[in-house]
């Protein structure tokens, strides 16, 4: 196909005297295109992972000499109440954050209609995902304020003393998760909305002819077609739950007395905050968090790989 203008070499007459590069162009090209991205990925993502695992074996304040500790940071971690609080909260985040998926699906089904001005409603529902997490955190901090927040007003209306949600060690994590769910639901909703756009009308029609409606239509006709959207929603929600950092930094800073900490914030607090700079211990926490994430990431990658193989 000389019309493409890529290949002007004359048709070889017997012996192949092209250079190695010319012979292997098709194999080399993708790697060349990948090279810049791969380089940056290695320098800024892969290498730091190993670096921080390495640092986790030292005692280091980020300025002076590193002192080799071996596994001592990890021993300390096992004996650290704060670490277990964070781990427990991380689990809570993971479990409760999953509520964003059914809630997002429900809102998406609700919004997936052709009514005047639907676009406006959709964008309003999507709004919390667009605004910064910091703003969401601030808004909810005010909501929860027992003296002038809306929670206080509602409680007082029913004649009860309002709880100090962010000041109570038993409520604080739920309070922050609830705030975090608001944008996360919007995110899942938008994923499902696009998913619903791709639901094949023929199958709906066929289902209707077979007498499916309401729940059975959703369960047996629509839901299976939403599988890719669901997969994506699970992935972003799991990652969102494990990354839950900004909300905590804004709303409580891990308080009261560390009871709303999660691993990512605890890591930041020990390694980089005002009273921290224990790089080794922070790295040990980061390594544990990485191990947990690795579980999920490997599962997702494996699942994607399976699907890709199945698709071909």
């Amino acid at each position: 196909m000389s019309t493409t203008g890529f290949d002007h070499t004359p048709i070889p007459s017997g012996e192949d005297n092209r250079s190695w590069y010319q012979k292997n162009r098709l194999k080399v090209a993708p790697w060349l295109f990948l090279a810049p991205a791969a380089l940056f990925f290695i320098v800024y993502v892969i290498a730091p992972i190993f670096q921080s695992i390495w640092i986790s074996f030292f005692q280091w304040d980020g300025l002076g000499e590193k002192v080799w500790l071996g596994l001592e940071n990890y021993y300390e971690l096992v004996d650290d109440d704060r670490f277990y609080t964070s781990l427990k909260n991380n689990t809570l985040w993971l479990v409760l954050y999953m509520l964003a998926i059914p809630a997002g699906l429900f809102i998406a089904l609700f919004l997936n209609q052709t009514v005047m001005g639907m676009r406006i409603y959709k964008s309003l529902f999507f709004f919390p995902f667009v605004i910064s997490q910091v703003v969401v955190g601030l808004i909810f901090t005010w909501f929860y304020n027992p003296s002038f927040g809306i929670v206080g007003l509602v409680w007082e209306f029913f004649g009860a003393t309002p709880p100090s949600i962010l000041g109570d060690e038993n409520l604080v994590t739920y309070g922050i998760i609830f705030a975090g769910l608001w944008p996360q639901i919007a995110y899942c909703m938008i994923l499902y909305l696009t998913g619903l756009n791709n639901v094949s009308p023929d199958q709906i029609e066929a289902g209707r002819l077979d007498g499916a409606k309401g729940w059975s239509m959703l369960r047996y006709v629509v839901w299976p077609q939403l599988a890719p959207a669901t997969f994506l929603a699970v992935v972003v929600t799991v990652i969102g739950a494990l990354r839950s950092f900004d909300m905590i930094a804004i709303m409580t800073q891990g308080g009261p007395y560390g009871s709303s900490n999660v691993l990512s914030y605890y890591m930041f607090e020990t390694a980089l905050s005002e009273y921290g700079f224990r790089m080794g211990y922070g790295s040990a926490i980061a390594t544990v968090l990485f191990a947990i994430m690795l579980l999920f990431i490997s599962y997702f990658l494996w699942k994607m790989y399976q699907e890709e193989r199945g698709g071909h």
Partner: protein
Amino acid sequence: MKSLIKSTIVGVATAAMMATAAFAGDLVINFDDPNPGPKKGFEDAVEAFKAANPDINVVVNITDREAHKTAIRNFLSADAPDVTTWYPGNRMAPFVNAGLFEDVSDLWESEGFNETMKAIRPTMTIDDKQWGVPYTYYQWGIYYRKDIFEDLGIEEPTTWDELLAASAKLKENDVTPFTIGTKFLWTAAGVFDYLNLRTNGYDVHNDLTAGKIKYTDPRIKNVFEKWRELIEPGYFIENHATMSWQDAVAPFAKGEAAMYVMGNFSVDAYKNAGLTYDQIDFFQFPEITPGVPRAEEAPADAFFIPANANNKEDARKFLAFIGQPDIQTEWNKTIGQLPVNSEATVSDDKFIQEGFATVGGAAGLAQFYDRDAPAEMAKAGMEGFQEFMIKPDRLDAILKRLDKAQERAYK
């Protein structure tokens, strides 16, 4: 693609702007308080310095306090200014130990600071050398609503019993005795420090923050028991764990709470909240154990020369300059605090006069729990204080945890 190029250009431009373009003749100063008062005080001092040294080109970077706390670790080693603000005591120890601050003992000698700043000298000293020059400090104590006290016929308490009686009376009249906001923890440390200084004295404060006394020590436990006498009857406002110190000014201004254990920098906040000088006043934290010499909290702010500075000669000139009595007089008048140099004149503001009397007669000056104790201990300790204020029943568990943290932090 276009947007990629665009954002790259923007990125490069921002990076270039952030780098302090310094030349040999420049004197680069990093200052950490952009609030109007402190900024003006600093800028006036810089103007005076420029007038006295017309050949020096002064370049000033003013950043937010919290940002400064993080940035300093980078700029001290990578792109050092010639002068920077920082805090004395244990807060400067990591930088001194890492060799990132310049020894300025020669300045203390030649400028006579050893005499004129005698009171603050120990906290600027590590290994018998001085590492910076302080320009201001301020007193702590109890700020109170004078009008409420007068309405209820309460006098300024001078002993623990009087304080408890005053609190009881306020509580009876539906006024919470103390406001406080412990979201950022350090406010609780102020209360703890004072209870400790008044119960056990200055030496115990120093030994505790130096890791020589355990938290389960009966003397320290005693401090918490005193604290309990304020917590259990509900003498602190509720929900303090969700409030910053500024948030906690609101109940004080509204008259829902009548006392506030605070530093003098808070007076500005009371005024901004609509209170007048007739409504607010100050008294020293009352005596607890009779006979314990009265020590006070008086944190200082100081200037330091990074070891990697380019222009140390002019930096020394600047440090010597801001240590002078007349400069400190003007500066502290502007920011409403106390000059460190004993030859400087104190402003005639009511609170500054009170503060001068407070620190002047003190048997010892503590910096503050989180400056006297190493960072790791300070964090654990202050979380413990906050937890105790909410769950006083857990005292024993908290103290045990603090012992564990102490063992690690002072290893």
